[in-house]
Protein backbone atom coordinates (compact mmCIF):
# COMPACT_ATOMS: atom_id res chain seq x y z
CA UNK A 1 0.00 0.00 0.00
CA UNK A 2 1.67 3.23 -1.18
CA UNK A 3 1.74 6.21 1.14
CA UNK A 4 0.12 9.29 -0.36
CA UNK A 5 3.20 11.42 0.39
CA UNK A 6 5.35 8.97 -1.51
CA UNK A 7 2.92 9.07 -4.41
CA UNK A 8 3.02 12.87 -4.51
CA UNK A 9 6.82 12.92 -4.29
CA UNK A 10 6.91 10.46 -7.17
CA UNK A 11 4.53 12.66 -9.15
CA UNK A 12 6.87 15.64 -8.74
CA UNK A 13 9.75 13.72 -10.30
CA UNK A 14 10.10 14.37 -14.00
CA UNK A 15 8.78 11.61 -16.18
CA UNK A 16 7.15 9.79 -13.26
CA UNK A 17 3.78 11.54 -13.41
CA UNK A 18 1.94 8.69 -15.13
CA UNK A 19 3.39 6.13 -12.75
CA UNK A 20 2.26 8.18 -9.75
CA UNK A 21 -1.17 8.64 -11.27
CA UNK A 22 -1.49 4.89 -11.85
CA UNK A 23 -0.64 4.33 -8.19
CA UNK A 24 -3.42 6.75 -7.20
CA UNK A 25 -5.87 4.88 -9.43
CA UNK A 26 -4.77 1.53 -8.04
CA UNK A 27 -4.98 2.76 -4.47
CA UNK A 28 -8.25 4.66 -4.50
CA UNK A 29 -10.38 3.49 -7.44
CA UNK A 30 -12.25 0.82 -5.50
CA UNK A 31 -13.11 3.05 -2.53
CA UNK A 32 -14.18 5.89 -4.79
CA UNK A 33 -16.18 3.54 -6.98
CA UNK A 34 -18.23 2.24 -4.05
CA UNK A 35 -18.82 5.74 -2.76
CA UNK A 36 -20.06 6.89 -6.16
CA UNK A 37 -22.09 3.72 -6.64
CA UNK A 38 -23.83 4.34 -3.31
CA UNK A 39 -24.99 7.66 -4.69
CA UNK A 40 -25.90 6.80 -8.29
CA UNK A 41 -26.85 3.10 -7.93
CA UNK A 42 -25.99 1.75 -11.37
CA UNK A 43 -22.63 0.43 -12.48
CA UNK A 44 -22.71 2.30 -15.78
CA UNK A 45 -23.21 5.69 -14.14
CA UNK A 46 -20.68 4.91 -11.40
CA UNK A 47 -18.14 3.80 -14.00
CA UNK A 48 -18.59 6.99 -16.06
CA UNK A 49 -18.34 9.18 -12.97
CA UNK A 50 -15.30 7.37 -11.64
CA UNK A 51 -13.48 7.85 -14.93
CA UNK A 52 -14.48 11.51 -15.05
CA UNK A 53 -13.24 11.87 -11.48
CA UNK A 54 -9.83 10.43 -12.32
CA UNK A 55 -9.52 12.52 -15.46
CA UNK A 56 -10.20 15.59 -13.33
CA UNK A 57 -7.63 14.36 -10.84
CA UNK A 58 -5.06 13.97 -13.63
CA UNK A 59 -5.75 17.49 -14.84
CA UNK A 60 -5.82 18.93 -11.32
CA UNK A 61 -2.71 17.23 -9.95
CA UNK A 62 -0.27 19.89 -11.22
CA UNK A 63 -2.12 22.50 -9.17
CA UNK A 64 -2.81 20.31 -6.11
CA UNK A 65 -1.32 22.32 -3.25
CA UNK A 66 -1.54 19.68 -0.51
CA UNK A 67 -3.68 21.90 1.70
CA UNK A 68 -5.72 18.77 2.35
CA UNK A 69 -4.95 15.07 2.21
CA UNK A 70 -4.85 13.52 -1.23
CA UNK A 71 -7.68 11.12 -0.46
CA UNK A 72 -10.01 13.84 0.90
CA UNK A 73 -9.32 15.80 -2.30
CA UNK A 74 -10.18 12.69 -4.34
CA UNK A 75 -13.37 12.14 -2.36
CA UNK A 76 -14.29 15.79 -2.83
CA UNK A 77 -13.96 15.55 -6.61
CA UNK A 78 -15.88 12.25 -6.71
CA UNK A 79 -18.66 13.56 -4.44
CA UNK A 80 -19.01 16.77 -6.42
CA UNK A 81 -19.15 14.85 -9.68
CA UNK A 82 -21.81 12.49 -8.33
CA UNK A 83 -23.92 15.28 -6.79
CA UNK A 84 -23.76 17.35 -9.99
CA UNK A 85 -24.76 14.29 -12.00
CA UNK A 86 -27.71 13.60 -9.68
CA UNK A 87 -28.82 17.22 -9.81
CA UNK A 88 -28.86 17.19 -13.61
CA UNK A 89 -30.72 13.89 -13.69
CA UNK A 90 -33.30 15.13 -11.20
CA UNK A 91 -33.93 18.28 -13.22
CA UNK A 92 -34.23 16.25 -16.44
CA UNK A 93 -36.63 13.81 -14.78
CA UNK A 94 -38.64 16.66 -13.25
CA UNK A 95 -39.03 18.28 -16.67
CA UNK A 96 -40.42 14.98 -17.93
CA UNK A 97 -42.86 15.05 -14.98
CA UNK A 98 -41.12 12.13 -13.30
CA UNK A 99 -39.38 11.47 -10.00
CA UNK A 100 -35.73 10.49 -10.05
CA UNK A 101 -35.86 8.78 -6.64
CA UNK A 102 -38.63 6.46 -7.90
CA UNK A 103 -36.60 5.84 -11.05
CA UNK A 104 -33.58 4.91 -8.92
CA UNK A 105 -35.70 2.58 -6.80
CA UNK A 106 -36.99 0.86 -9.92
CA UNK A 107 -33.49 0.53 -11.29
CA UNK A 108 -32.37 -0.95 -7.98
CA UNK A 109 -35.09 -3.59 -8.17
CA UNK A 110 -34.25 -4.44 -11.76
CA UNK A 111 -30.45 -4.30 -11.29
CA UNK A 112 -29.04 -7.80 -11.96
CA UNK A 113 -25.84 -6.87 -10.13
CA UNK A 114 -27.72 -6.21 -6.90
CA UNK A 115 -27.00 -9.03 -4.55
CA UNK A 116 -29.25 -8.59 -1.53
CA UNK A 117 -32.30 -10.01 0.19
CA UNK A 118 -35.67 -8.33 0.79
CA UNK A 119 -34.38 -6.46 3.85
CA UNK A 120 -31.36 -5.22 1.94
CA UNK A 121 -33.57 -3.90 -0.86
CA UNK A 122 -35.79 -2.16 1.70
CA UNK A 123 -32.79 -0.54 3.40
CA UNK A 124 -31.33 0.63 0.10
CA UNK A 125 -34.66 2.05 -0.90
CA UNK A 126 -34.79 4.06 2.31
CA UNK A 127 -31.26 5.32 1.74
CA UNK A 128 -32.25 6.37 -1.77
CA UNK A 129 -35.09 8.45 -0.35
CA UNK A 130 -32.62 10.66 1.56
CA UNK A 131 -31.69 14.00 -0.02
CA UNK A 132 -28.56 13.64 -2.19
CA UNK A 133 -26.24 15.59 0.12
CA UNK A 134 -27.45 13.73 3.18
CA UNK A 135 -26.95 10.46 1.31
CA UNK A 136 -23.39 11.52 0.50
CA UNK A 137 -22.76 12.29 4.18
CA UNK A 138 -24.27 8.96 5.18
CA UNK A 139 -22.16 7.08 2.63
CA UNK A 140 -18.94 8.82 3.63
CA UNK A 141 -19.54 8.26 7.33
CA UNK A 142 -21.15 4.84 7.40
CA UNK A 143 -19.68 2.94 4.45
CA UNK A 144 -16.40 4.77 3.91
CA UNK A 145 -15.92 5.21 7.67
CA UNK A 146 -14.38 8.66 7.33
CA UNK A 147 -14.07 11.02 10.29
CA UNK A 148 -16.41 13.98 10.51
CA UNK A 149 -13.42 16.32 10.16
CA UNK A 150 -12.51 14.64 6.87
CA UNK A 151 -16.11 14.73 5.64
CA UNK A 152 -16.18 18.39 6.60
CA UNK A 153 -13.30 19.04 4.19
CA UNK A 154 -14.94 16.98 1.47
CA UNK A 155 -18.41 18.49 1.76
CA UNK A 156 -17.29 21.96 2.83
CA UNK A 157 -19.74 21.83 5.74
CA UNK A 158 -19.26 22.25 9.49
CA UNK A 159 -18.75 19.18 11.67
CA UNK A 160 -21.84 20.04 13.73
CA UNK A 161 -24.06 20.19 10.66
CA UNK A 162 -22.63 16.89 9.42
CA UNK A 163 -23.29 15.16 12.74
CA UNK A 164 -26.86 16.42 12.73
CA UNK A 165 -27.34 15.36 9.11
CA UNK A 166 -25.96 11.88 9.76
CA UNK A 167 -28.02 11.41 12.91
CA UNK A 168 -31.15 12.47 11.05
CA UNK A 169 -30.39 10.07 8.19
CA UNK A 170 -29.99 7.16 10.62
CA UNK A 171 -33.26 8.05 12.32
CA UNK A 172 -35.14 8.23 9.02
CA UNK A 173 -33.83 4.84 7.87
CA UNK A 174 -34.53 3.17 11.22
CA UNK A 175 -38.03 4.57 11.47
CA UNK A 176 -38.93 3.53 7.93
CA UNK A 177 -37.65 0.02 8.55
CA UNK A 178 -39.51 -0.29 11.83
CA UNK A 179 -42.71 0.54 10.01
CA UNK A 180 -42.07 -2.07 7.32
CA UNK A 181 -40.69 -4.98 9.39
Amino acid at each position, binding site marked *: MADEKQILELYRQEGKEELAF*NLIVREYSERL*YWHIRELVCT*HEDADDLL*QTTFIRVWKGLPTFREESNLYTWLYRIATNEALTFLKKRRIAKFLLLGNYTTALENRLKADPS*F*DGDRLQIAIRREILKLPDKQRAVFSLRYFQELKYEEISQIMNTSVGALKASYHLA*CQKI*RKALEEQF
Partner: protein
Amino acid sequence: MNSRKNIENILPKRFPYKVPDGYFSAMEDELARKIKAGDEFQRNSLLAKLKPAIALAATFALIFGLGFGVMNLTKGLGRAGYAPELASEMDSIVRQEVEEASLIETLEHFYGQRQQEDTLAINIGLEEELIDDYLLSEISLVSLLSFE
Protein backbone atom coordinates in the same frame (compact mmCIF):
# COMPACT_ATOMS: atom_id res chain seq x y z
CA MET B 1 -23.62 7.25 18.41
CA ASN B 2 -26.73 5.44 19.54
CA SER B 3 -28.35 5.74 16.16
CA ARG B 4 -25.21 4.45 14.49
CA LYS B 5 -25.20 1.31 16.65
CA ASN B 6 -28.82 0.65 15.82
CA ILE B 7 -28.22 1.05 12.14
CA GLU B 8 -25.21 -1.25 12.24
CA ASN B 9 -27.42 -4.02 13.58
CA ILE B 10 -29.53 -4.03 10.46
CA LEU B 11 -27.33 -2.53 7.75
CA PRO B 12 -24.25 -4.56 6.82
CA LYS B 13 -21.28 -2.63 5.53
CA ARG B 14 -20.80 -5.10 2.71
CA PHE B 15 -21.90 -3.59 -0.58
CA PRO B 16 -24.76 -5.58 -2.05
CA TYR B 17 -23.73 -4.73 -5.62
CA LYS B 18 -21.56 -6.66 -8.02
CA VAL B 19 -19.06 -5.29 -10.51
CA PRO B 20 -17.92 -6.96 -13.74
CA ASP B 21 -14.93 -9.28 -13.32
CA GLY B 22 -11.58 -7.54 -13.65
CA TYR B 23 -13.18 -4.11 -13.62
CA PHE B 24 -10.76 -2.49 -11.17
CA SER B 25 -7.65 -4.09 -12.64
CA ALA B 26 -8.58 -2.79 -16.09
CA MET B 27 -9.19 0.73 -14.75
CA GLU B 28 -5.59 1.95 -15.10
CA ASP B 29 -5.34 0.99 -18.78
CA GLU B 30 -8.79 2.35 -19.52
CA LEU B 31 -7.93 5.69 -17.94
CA ALA B 32 -4.54 5.90 -19.63
CA ARG B 33 -6.25 5.30 -22.98
CA LYS B 34 -8.91 7.94 -22.28
CA ILE B 35 -6.41 10.54 -21.09
CA LYS B 36 -4.20 9.99 -24.15
CA ALA B 37 -7.22 10.16 -26.44
CA GLY B 38 -8.34 13.38 -24.74
CA ASP B 39 -4.89 14.95 -25.09
CA GLU B 40 -4.68 13.85 -28.72
CA PHE B 41 -8.13 15.26 -29.39
CA GLN B 42 -7.20 18.55 -27.77
CA ARG B 43 -4.03 18.80 -29.82
CA ASN B 44 -5.70 17.87 -33.10
CA SER B 45 -9.02 19.56 -32.74
CA LEU B 46 -9.77 22.41 -35.09
CA LEU B 47 -10.58 24.63 -32.14
CA ALA B 48 -7.14 24.06 -30.62
CA LYS B 49 -5.47 24.90 -33.92
CA LEU B 50 -7.54 28.00 -34.42
CA LYS B 51 -7.20 29.16 -30.82
CA PRO B 52 -4.44 31.77 -31.44
CA ALA B 53 -6.26 33.17 -34.49
CA ILE B 54 -9.55 33.31 -32.57
CA ALA B 55 -7.85 35.06 -29.66
CA LEU B 56 -6.30 37.63 -32.02
CA ALA B 57 -9.60 38.25 -33.80
CA ALA B 58 -11.40 38.59 -30.48
CA THR B 59 -8.84 41.15 -29.29
CA PHE B 60 -9.27 43.22 -32.47
CA ALA B 61 -13.03 43.00 -32.18
CA LEU B 62 -12.85 44.13 -28.57
CA ILE B 63 -10.61 47.10 -29.42
CA PHE B 64 -12.82 48.05 -32.38
CA GLY B 65 -15.95 47.70 -30.24
CA LEU B 66 -14.52 49.84 -27.46
CA GLY B 67 -13.35 52.51 -29.93
CA PHE B 68 -16.71 52.55 -31.67
CA GLY B 69 -18.49 52.80 -28.34
CA VAL B 70 -16.33 55.69 -27.15
CA MET B 71 -16.77 57.53 -30.45
CA ASN B 72 -20.52 57.10 -30.30
CA LEU B 73 -20.68 58.33 -26.73
CA THR B 74 -18.59 61.45 -27.40
CA LYS B 75 -20.11 62.26 -30.83
CA GLY B 76 -22.43 65.02 -29.54
CA LEU B 77 -19.89 66.82 -27.40
CA GLY B 78 -18.65 70.31 -28.58
CA ARG B 79 -21.53 71.06 -30.95
CA ALA B 80 -25.28 71.38 -30.82
CA GLY B 81 -26.53 67.91 -31.19
CA TYR B 82 -30.16 68.67 -31.77
CA ALA B 83 -32.11 66.23 -33.75
CA PRO B 84 -33.54 67.70 -36.98
CA GLU B 85 -37.13 67.33 -35.71
CA LEU B 86 -36.32 69.20 -32.52
CA ALA B 87 -34.51 71.97 -34.43
CA SER B 88 -37.45 72.56 -36.80
CA GLU B 89 -39.85 72.58 -33.86
CA MET B 90 -37.72 75.21 -32.12
CA ASP B 91 -37.64 77.30 -35.31
CA SER B 92 -41.42 77.30 -35.60
CA ILE B 93 -41.81 78.31 -31.92
CA VAL B 94 -39.37 81.21 -32.33
CA ARG B 95 -41.06 82.33 -35.55
CA GLN B 96 -44.43 82.30 -33.87
CA GLU B 97 -43.07 84.32 -30.93
CA VAL B 98 -41.56 86.92 -33.23
CA GLU B 99 -44.75 87.31 -35.17
CA GLU B 100 -46.81 87.74 -32.03
CA ALA B 101 -44.62 90.36 -30.40
CA SER B 102 -44.53 93.81 -31.97
CA LEU B 103 -41.22 95.33 -32.99
CA ILE B 104 -41.66 98.30 -30.66
CA GLU B 105 -42.27 96.08 -27.68
CA THR B 106 -39.23 94.08 -28.55
CA LEU B 107 -37.08 97.19 -28.89
CA GLU B 108 -38.43 98.70 -25.64
CA HIS B 109 -37.78 95.46 -23.87
CA PHE B 110 -34.28 95.25 -25.31
CA TYR B 111 -33.30 98.85 -24.44
CA GLY B 112 -34.94 98.65 -21.04
CA GLN B 113 -32.83 95.61 -20.22
CA ARG B 114 -29.69 97.26 -21.58
CA GLN B 115 -30.30 100.36 -19.42
CA GLN B 116 -30.76 98.17 -16.37
CA GLU B 117 -27.51 96.38 -17.13
CA ASP B 118 -25.67 99.75 -17.49
CA THR B 119 -27.04 100.90 -14.14
CA LEU B 120 -25.87 97.74 -12.55
CA ALA B 121 -22.44 98.21 -14.06
CA ILE B 122 -22.21 101.69 -12.54
CA ASN B 123 -23.41 100.49 -9.18
CA ILE B 124 -20.83 97.78 -8.90
CA GLY B 125 -17.92 100.09 -9.94
CA LEU B 126 -15.21 100.77 -7.40
CA GLU B 127 -14.90 104.16 -5.76
CA GLU B 128 -11.72 106.13 -6.41
CA GLU B 129 -10.87 106.41 -2.70
CA LEU B 130 -10.86 102.66 -2.39
CA ILE B 131 -8.52 102.34 -5.35
CA ASP B 132 -6.16 104.95 -3.83
CA ASP B 133 -6.16 103.20 -0.45
CA TYR B 134 -5.40 99.90 -2.11
CA LEU B 135 -2.54 101.32 -4.17
CA LEU B 136 -1.01 103.04 -1.17
CA SER B 137 -1.21 100.08 1.18
CA GLU B 138 -0.52 97.14 -1.12
CA ILE B 139 1.81 98.35 -3.86
CA SER B 140 5.33 99.61 -3.21
CA LEU B 141 6.59 103.01 -4.32
CA VAL B 142 8.94 101.47 -6.84
CA SER B 143 6.09 99.68 -8.47
CA LEU B 144 4.03 102.86 -8.57
CA LEU B 145 6.88 104.79 -10.17
CA SER B 146 7.36 102.14 -12.73
CA PHE B 147 3.79 102.82 -14.02
CA GLU B 148 4.80 106.27 -15.11
